[in-house]
């Protein structure tokens, strides 16, 4: 076990006290698992290409005291103004701006844990269960459970369209880099609808680590659109996990945009538990400098007639390193499933690296599945074509790489947001070497 893991174990709270008994059990279970395994290492298959080297060297301290946040801290400007915006600082609920529509309930996690909320306990407990089923030990999630206290609970009542909600995440520089744990729980009842925009951006003067788990339970015919945009500071570490459970005919759409961060790891996993549910998992990652971005996407088709589409595009320049793992498992009985996986990458530098791995397991009948993973350079024919019309070579290359990533932002129904994200991507687009 690494020194960092040992440090974090020593810093775990002694007493899992306040709140209901089940919560104490849940925290204890997390702590026990973390004590047993610690943080993941390269020996774990799912972390083979992602070491925690830079994080471990940083002498990160576990943030454990949940003091009231100071007001007046600068928060990143949201990409778009949504009806409701929650500002999260250092993993904690800082402020709520705007109005909650009838049928929408947004609470700080700490309040929801004390007062209780229908479905919350089951949702929180399901994380451990999912881990046991998929057989993946995920030390960060165990740590997150052991320290469960901060975060947000979002509940949308049956038949309600809750509109758009923004979660703006930021951290402050501290004397020593800190590790924050936070949990987001999203409960969409039958026929409920929600659009959630998560935006991560911190001032460029800190090397904090955010460890955030988002769990969502989608009721029958519920629709959850989840946009995750991160432009973290170069030294920041962002470990996020998204765990989605889908009932029949529900729709989940994920759009992830990784533009920043020094070490970024994101696991997105959906379980199609009800028939006819749809999952679209899309992402774009842009890497330059020494940045490392690892995306793991997995869809488990448990019920029949489901549809999943995983679509990721990546551009790596400098010494950037991208890891992409896409997995689909069509379980026995999940007949007539359609599953697509597509990952394409452009390497702009000889020192950049992309490790991409599609996985497909099918144990059902009448399944339509396709997958493709490519790593290549820019199309030189296209570069010449554009130059022959008057565009400079750098402009031609930038237009091509941006277009490549735009194929992800163009999927957003909100064109204004798609355009804003596309501009942000253009601003940080790695240059060819």
């Amino acid at each position, binding site marked *: 076990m690494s020194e960092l893991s040992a440090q974090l174990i020593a810093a775990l709270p002694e007493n899992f006290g306040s709140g209901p008994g089940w919560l104490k059990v849940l925290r204890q279970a997390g702590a026990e698992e973390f004590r047993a395994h610690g943080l993941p290492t390269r020996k774990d298959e799912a972390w083979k290409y992602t070491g925690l080297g830079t994080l471990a060297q940083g002498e990160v301290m576990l943030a454990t005291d949940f003091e009231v946040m100071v007001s007046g801290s600068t928060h990143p400007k949201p990409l778009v103004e949504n009806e409701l915006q929650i500002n999260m600082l250092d993993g904690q609920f800082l402020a709520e701006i705007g109005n909650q529509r009838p049928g929408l309930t947004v609470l700080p996690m700490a309040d929801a844990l004390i007062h209780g909320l229908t479905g919350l306990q089951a949702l929180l407990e399901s994380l451990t269960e999912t881990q046991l089923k998929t057989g993946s030990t995920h030390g960060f999630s165990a740590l997150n459970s052991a320290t469960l206290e901060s975060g947000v609970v979002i509940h949308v009542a049956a038949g309600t369209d809750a509109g758009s909600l923004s979660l703006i995440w930021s951290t402050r520089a501290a004397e020593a880099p800190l590790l924050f744990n936070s949990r987001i729980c999203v409960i969409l009842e039958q026929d409920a609808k929600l659009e959630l925009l998560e935006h991560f951006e911190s001032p460029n003067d800190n090397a904090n680590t955010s460890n955030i788990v988002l769990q969502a339970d989608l009721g029958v015919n519920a629709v959850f659109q989840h946009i995750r945009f991160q432009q973290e500071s170069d030294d920041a570490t962002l470990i996020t996990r998204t765990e989605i459970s889908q009932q029949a005919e529900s729709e989940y759409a994920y759009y992830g945009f990784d533009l920043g961060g020094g070490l970024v790891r994101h696991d997105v996993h959906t379980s199609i538990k009800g028939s006819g549910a749809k999952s679209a998992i899309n992402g774009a990652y842009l890497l330059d400098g020494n940045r490392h971005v690892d995306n793991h996407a997995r869809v488990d088709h448990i019920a029949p007639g489901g549809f999943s589409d995983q679509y990721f595009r990546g551009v790596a320049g400098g010494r950037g390193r991208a890891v992409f793992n896409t997995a689909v498992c069509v379980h026995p009985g999940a007949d007539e499933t359609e599953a697509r996986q597509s990952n394409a990458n452009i390497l702009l530098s000889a020192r950049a690296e992309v490790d991409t791995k599609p996985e497909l397991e099918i144990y059902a009948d009448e399944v339509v599945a396709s997958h493709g993973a490519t790593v290549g350079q820019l199309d030189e*024919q296209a570069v010449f074509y554009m*130059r*022959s*019309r008057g565009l400079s*070579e750098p*402009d031609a290359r930038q237009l091509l790489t941006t*277009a490549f990533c735009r194929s992800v932002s163009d999927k957003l129904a909100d064109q204004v947001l798609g355009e804003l994200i596309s501009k942000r991507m253009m601003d940080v687009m790695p240059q060819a070497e």
Partner: protein
Amino acid sequence: MLKIKNLHATVAGNKILKGLNLELKAGEVHAIMGPNGAGKSTLGNVLAGREAYDVTEGEIIFNGKNLLELEPEERACEGVFLAFQYPVEIPGVNNTYFLRAALNAQRKYRGEEALDSVSFLRLVREKLKILHIGDGLLHRAVNEGFSGGEKKRNEIFQMAVLEPTLAILDETDSGLDIDALKTVAEGVNRLRSPDRGMIVITHYQRLLDYIVPDKVHVLADGKLVATGGADLALKLEEQGYAWLEDGGIATLDVDSVEQMANP
């Protein structure tokens, strides 16, 4: 406007052009015909500055400038336009956006103000009207999923917007049915002007029924072996290219006959 002297060019070590001479004056349209492998497309690509083509000897003077010293984008900004034989598909890049970026890059080079999107769209609509092309292609990605005819029309449309002084049409007729061919030819004819020179590269005489050239050159084995008026194209059509090897040139009533490269 354009003087090509003793041009030799190689592709991947193979000698393709072997001493080509050509002079084009503003306002003229020259057709270059010849059998497959004669070097027709190489000429177009060398003029546009494609990197895979190495010029080993000779020079190209365009409006007083040494064209071979210029980057492809500088040539474009100086007014050279190549309508590609195989226009490249660029997924994700909107046709209108691309063309505006190209036009503004050229305007910047010439010290002119960039066109805002409103003025640009006005210009684009005007050109589409002149060329009788619908506006459907404006909203699509550059050439992506275009039919052969749409791709060629898009090349002519780009040419109309960029208003080059030298346009090279590289087998613009290939793969077109007769209706598409007529539309493309009509577009080209509308762009003929006293300030603009055009080189029409083609394998078949058919296109020249609609674009009547001032001169027709025969390119064979890397050199222009014959030059004549528009009627030369018809004779070529009748007799095919086979006579080139049989020394048939002498039987043609042409303005000039150059020595074959390998007599």
